[in-house]
């Protein structure tokens, strides 16, 4: 049975969440279905819903190809970042190398590094990573690594070291051991590290401008920005573009959130 004050505070938080987190998103969705003239005359009401914004937004900017490109950048860089993080984290957590503690501190400093765009740009030019797909991905691997190492060292440390010893005595190779035994057991940490790295690419607003020059390589955030002008009559288009771009990302997170919840539940059942 639910006690009264509990129910009241539950409802209060429910209303808070609805107002704070649902309303702004719904407003953008509402705008995307409004005709521009209706929006200009009475911006706060939903007129007769129209679909034309979506078609226009889709064709005016290269949203489709840009979206695919962004997913490619973010997923590959995120995976590489997580994998390299594990390759550092495992030897540190198991103290397989001398100076593990110093190495950990060295990686920890990376969490505090601010963006150094000018040297990065110079590096990109000299290493032929400027304005090409592979280069753009390589340049985005590092930002996720420090946090990946922190999370994975913590997670690997909770696994009993006897696992390693048994497997290695039976002759399992390092990589296949990591892949078959460690990866499944530290999956929640891997997932968080991956999402964090992926979001770094997704949230990068200076990278596209500083590290790419041809618009045919731009990620989708640049495409959405083309609808943002001083002219608010275009805003129904902007809202439509926002909705189009958000759908796949939100879908990805819904899929991952299930995993995350299951993972953190499973992690809590230990003796």
């Amino acid at each position: 049975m639910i006690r009264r004050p509990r129910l009241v505070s539950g409802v209060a938080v429910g209303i808070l969440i609805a107002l704070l987190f649902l309303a702004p998103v719904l407003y953008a969705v509402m705008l995307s279905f409004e005709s521009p003239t209706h929006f200009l005359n009475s911006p706060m009401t939903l007129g007769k819903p129209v679909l034309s914004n979506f078609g226009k937004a889709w064709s005016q900017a290269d949203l489709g190809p840009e979206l695919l490109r962004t997913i490619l950048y973010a997923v590959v860089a995120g995976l590489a970042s997580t994998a390299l993080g594990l390759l550092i984290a495992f030897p540190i957590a198991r103290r397989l190398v001398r100076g593990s503690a110093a190495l950990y501190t060295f990686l920890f400093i990376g969490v505090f590094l601010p963006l150094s765009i000018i040297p990065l740009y110079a590096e990109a030019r000299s290493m032929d990573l400027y304005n090409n797909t592979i280069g753009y991905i390589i340049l985005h691997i590092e930002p996720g690594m420090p946090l990946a190492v922190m999370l994975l060292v913590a997670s690997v440390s909770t696994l009993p070291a006897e696992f390693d010893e048994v497997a290695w005595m039976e002759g399992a190779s390092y990589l296949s051991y990591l892949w078959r035994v460690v990866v499944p057991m530290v999956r929640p940490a891997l997932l968080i590290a991956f999402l964090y790295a992926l979001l770094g690419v997704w949230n990068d607003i200076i990278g596209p401008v500083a590290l790419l020059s041809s618009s045919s390589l731009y990620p989708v955030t640049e495409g959405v920005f083309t609808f943002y002008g001083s002219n608010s009559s275009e805003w129904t288009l902007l809202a439509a573009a926002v909705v189009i771009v958000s759908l796949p990302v939100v879908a990805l997170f819904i899929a991952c959130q299930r995993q995350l919840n299951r993972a953190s539940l499973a992690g809590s059942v230990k003796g």
Partner: protein
Amino acid sequence: MTKAPVTTGDAVRGKARRARPARLLSRTSKITMWGGLALALVVYLLFGIGPMIGNVIISFTDYTQLAWATTHVVGFANYASMFTSQSTAFYQSIVTTVVFTLAVTLGQSALGLLLAHKLVGDSKWAAVGRLLVFVPIALGVTIVGLVWIMIFDPAQGPATSFFGLFGVHSAFLGADGWALGIVIFVQIWQNAGFSTLVFIGGLRAIDPSLYEAGAMDGIGTWRRLRKITFPLLAPSVTANVMLALVGAFTTYNLIYVLTGGGSSYGTQTLGMLAFNDAFGVNAETNLGYGAAVTVALFVMTLVVATPVLIYLRGRERRLLR
């Protein structure tokens, strides 16, 4: 790598000193381990540490990136000018950063804790709540920024209608008194879901038998929260405060989307100032100065975050004893 199982001066603390499992690895496995480690460290050095060192070097020059200009070593001139000629912008941005960081760190952690406390359960509503709270993170800074720009639009936005009810009219993101508050609010709004996630993980890791023991001793909700939940959440508090703190210190992208860099509306934090000087509105004149601001930002982040981290770790040890 030496064959000695345990070497002195090594960081093997706390644990029993037994033979290193590394010697169980086959020769090829050892090579792959070192290879993987080396590859990962090369990426980290080249694209993480390297550019920062580059920044330190550039900060001692008057580098401009203009093809015809020669670069000179200017010593500490760029650092000196932070405190003299361009001081208003620098001092102002320090104040802005402190206000922004304090408000965001406290607000994001508090809201995250409140939401996690209510959304930790297994009910369907809790799952829906967790999803909604997490959506802004998935949307990313560009989308989040654009949505709030539309909401705070002085002509058409719902915020205009809402505040109009109270007779308050403002240019919001274009108004001195408002812009920083809105930027703080949106930064918290965007990242609250992350704090919630970390706190939910922490809450779930608490052994339920402790609550049962507490219930048997007949302690009330408030005491239970104070004596059991909060102390055991200490590691989550550390993680949250550190991530919010460092995030708030170095951020520039959300501010850039919301106010375009905003030196005129009081939203130019140090991270934003470093961006503006290296790449944005003030870039052409002297990249060395921008690099110096970036170095200052890094040092300040370390100077502020290290004692906070030491304090929070100490707090963990005290509370979990």
